[in-house]
């Protein structure tokens, strides 16, 4: 049986706005299983991104506990969380967030060198990964402003997986891409997952959710639905789509 890689217990996250407390996540219990491609869905404002950032140690919860493997991280300071994230989490953002003043290769290595020592093997790994996601050698010395949205996001994915994180977190990774580029990016996620990478991805896009092995539905700060699917490509697309659509309709999506 696959083991749990991440677990929460009565997780809460509140924001104070003009003196009024807004409870976005309420007593949430969830378990992320190693090797799963977990997609979190929900209506706008349901707290998807908030949950993602809390799970990934980007943000601290207001209450509750988070186990990352055997480590409880909810009481970590910001710097402790940063150090923790280095070796355990990879991130792909909707706006990509490449470092504007660094080349493609340097963007990838900036993520890697905070964890690993510089070595020819590391550089080779970065270059191999870039090639694998379709970023050709002639683009490695280019700056982010010289890349298309899809290319930039592919570089973002390489930067996120270069350290072999325990979980790859992604927040609407195709949100700003056209459909062709979006598909390319999703194909990369699928391939990365098939190589054994645990993924937690937030989206409200059906096409993206179809790549998942597990879909969690979030409403009013809690998980109200948990839908499991086979690994993408192992079942017919039509069947997969129908099952997911039915689940989402049931959830009121």
């Amino acid at each position, binding site marked *: 049986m696959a083991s749990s890689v991440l677990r929460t217990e009565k997780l809460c996250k509140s924001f104070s706005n003009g003196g009024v407390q807004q409870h976005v996540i309420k007593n949430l219990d969830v378990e992320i299983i190693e090797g799963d491609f977990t997609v979190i869905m929900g209506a706008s404002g349901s707290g998807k991104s908030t949950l993602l950032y809390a799970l990934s140690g*980007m943000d601290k919860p207001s209450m509750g506990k988070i186990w990352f493997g055997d480590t409880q991280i909810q009481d970590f300071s910001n710097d402790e969380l940063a150090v923790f994230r280095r*070796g355990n989490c990879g991130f792909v953002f909707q*706006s990509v*967030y490449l470092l504007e*003043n660094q080349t493609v290769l340097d963007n990838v290595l900036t993520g890697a060198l*905070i964890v690993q020592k*510089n070595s020819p093997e590391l550089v080779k790994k970065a270059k191999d990964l870039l090639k694998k996601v379709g970023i050709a050698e002639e683009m490695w010395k280019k*700056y982010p*402003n010289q890349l298309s949205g899809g290319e930039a996001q592919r570089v973002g994915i390489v930067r996120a997986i270069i350290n072999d994180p325990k979980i790859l977190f992604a927040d609407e990774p195709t949100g700003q891409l056209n459909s062709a580029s979006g598909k390319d990016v999703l194909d990369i996620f699928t391939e990365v997952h098939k190589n054994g990478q645990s993924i937690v991805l937030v989206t409200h896009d059906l096409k993206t959710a179809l790549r998942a092995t597990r879909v969690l539905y979030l409403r009013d700060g809690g998980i109200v639905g948990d839908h499991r699917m086979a690994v993408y490509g192992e079942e017919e697309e039509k069947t997969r789509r129908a099952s997911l659509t039915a689940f989402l309709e049931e959830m009121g999506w």
Partner: protein
Amino acid sequence: MEHKILRLSLFNLKKNKREVLGIVFMTMITVMMLSIVLINSRKIDTAYDESFARSGSVTRAVQFKMDKYRNAFRTILEEQYGIENVSEGRWIYTNMVDVRSSDGDIVAYNMVFLTEKTERKIEAFRKLDQLPAEEIDRLSHPIWLPVAFQIVKGYDVGDDFVVLKNGKEYPFTIAGFYETGLMNNDGWQYKLVLSEEDYTLFAMLFDSSSMWECIALFFDSPDFAYDRYLEDCNAVASENLSYTSSYYYKEGEKINETSFLKIFMMMITGISVVTLIASLFMIRHKITGDIEDQMQQIGVLEALGYRSAEISLAYLFEYVIAGGSGAILGAGLAILITPAVNSAIGIMMGRIVSESTGMGGALIAAVAILFLVVVFALLKAGQVKNYPPVVALRKGIKTHHFGKNILPLEKMRMNINAGLALKAFFGNLRSSAGIFFCIVTAGTAILFGAMTYDFFKAGWTGFASIMGTDWDVLKVYTLGNVDVDAFREELLSMPEVRKAIKVYSGEHVSVKGSSKNAEVITFGDYADAENIHPYQGRFPKYDNEIMIGMSRSRDEHVGIGDSIVLEYNGLEKNYIVTGIVGTLQNGGTVVFLTNEGYERLNIFAEQTVVQTYPAEGVKIRELEDAINAHFGGTTKAAAEGETQAAGRDERIRAAAEEKIAVLLNQYGVTDVDYAVQIGDEMITGNSRGFVIREYFSYEGIVKTQMLPIAETTKSFCLYALILVAAIVAVLITIITSNDVRRQRHTLGIMKGLGYSSKDLMLQLALKYMPVIICGTMIATMCGIWVNKLFWGFSFAVVTKINVAVIVITDLLLIVFCFAVAYLSAGRIRKISVTELMTE
């Protein structure tokens, strides 16, 4: 529309409070410093003139040793020079006579003693603080001192004022202080008024190499040429009077009293230039940052129809408000501390300084600095026009990178934080130029301050070390009949004596073609000299070689290899300059010869002085006591009746010895035998018991003249160092804060990648290190150069460079800058990754 622009200004002011406060602080310091300079530079001039005018003093006085004076000298003044109202008086001239200071220490002053009658021929004798008249009448030895003794030396009315001469004490009681025109400073002379009785006693007692009675002529003349007058007097007297006459005049004493203050004003100006440069750089940095930060807002305003000039106004208003506040505060502060500065000037000059607000100077400084700030801000804010709406809305072209990848991480083997810091540094070299310039300027001030502080940290001994003469010695003047070599050998056998060498001392010669006579310093072998260090060339070795002071070399354009002709009693000899030395002795006019070199010029010279160096831990006064105990005191002490005998025979011997001492000391007698018959009894004796004529040491005068300068300069340097360090701290804080603000987005991404706040703070601080290290290195060179320039220009001397102090200061400066940058980057902690990701 204006309302909208003003709102943008106020928004910027409110948003970047720390930067704005920094600019207010810098402008305030600049205006305050400049105001102090503007207010007080003039004050220094006027304070001296006002004090001089109040004293009612004549502007000139010429003195001649009593036995050299001729009535014709006065006639020359009146008839040849057409000077009216010349008056004449007597005074006792003293050169470095010891006095017990107000705190009991022994110091030495150059003084003249005179009576009230003579004093009133010179000036109005304007009395200030004084004892009640009836108390003064009861005093057995009243004395009136120039007010400098009250302001600077800490004496009060009714205090004892004790003159020490050859081990004997002459106590006076201070009846009061008076405001004097001439003779009110350590560097030249003090003028002390005695009762008629005390004056007569002093005149009878003292006639030595350091104290003699003179006739002085007092007069006013707008363009009196002393050198020419002395030549006329020499012609009448058929001898060179330059060694036995002196000239005192208002302009010279004014320079003496105010020169150090003017140097301080120069230093303050230097610091205000540092702050001004730092302020302007900060404004430049901030405007550039603000424009980049608000690029999209600028684009929107331009799209709405605002002209770029109108948008520039927003930035201008910001600096009018910030700079204006700083200027007003600075001017206000300057006005507020003006009384304290006036008082400090009074203390440094030893004069009463009338208080003034200095409103005009402060206003000029405030307006000038505000004008500069506004013009600079206007020029910088003008760059808004480089961003048309389309460019501005796309956040300008600057956010796009196309250039060469400097230091690619692929090849970098160093720590990632250091590597990224270096990348950031090389990727933004242009903005480093400003920091570099500021560090060089501030670093130069810090290095110069540290070197000067180090020089003075041990007090007056630092200054004494550049005197260019062996000052920590006791000169023993022997009697003419003494075998000086044997005496020297005996001195060397004493445990209190480390070294004893025969020298000539206190001899003066003329330098042909120069208006400045020269005191001669001689050594048999200059390897014995301990505090004379040639700046160029070498010591004289042969009898036709000479070494001269830097100021003479500079003023008279004489260098190594040139010839100098010295003249003594009509005999002229040629000498070749072999070395140039920094020396404070007699204003740097001294010349250095070998003993034989001097004997070439003065063929009758007799070597009677033994320069005695105390053993380790022995003080000069202890050495004097030990020599007295060993050799039996000086003829001066005996002649002044110091001996206190108990029995009849001893009293007779003491009286006889006193007579002998007077004969030996004052009449050049070499041998005396005596026999006194009392009834059948005969008491006999001779002069062979006397060996030493008198002592002389520099210690007291060096301490008197140099201690106040050393203490003041040391304190000034310390405060200046703290201030410049504060300026550097403010500057780096602002730059770092601005950097954090501008790079908020990038720093957020880096945090997302797992870089901790500490990593990012380290990167940011390290980013400035190359420019800070380079700036410090250049500042070190500039600091050494400024130090050399300062000492050379101000005192015509060269000070030793303490490499350890420079290295430590450099390291401290670099570490300080790093620490300030690191701590200022602490704002990074507040950057929230999620806030950035969800914005």
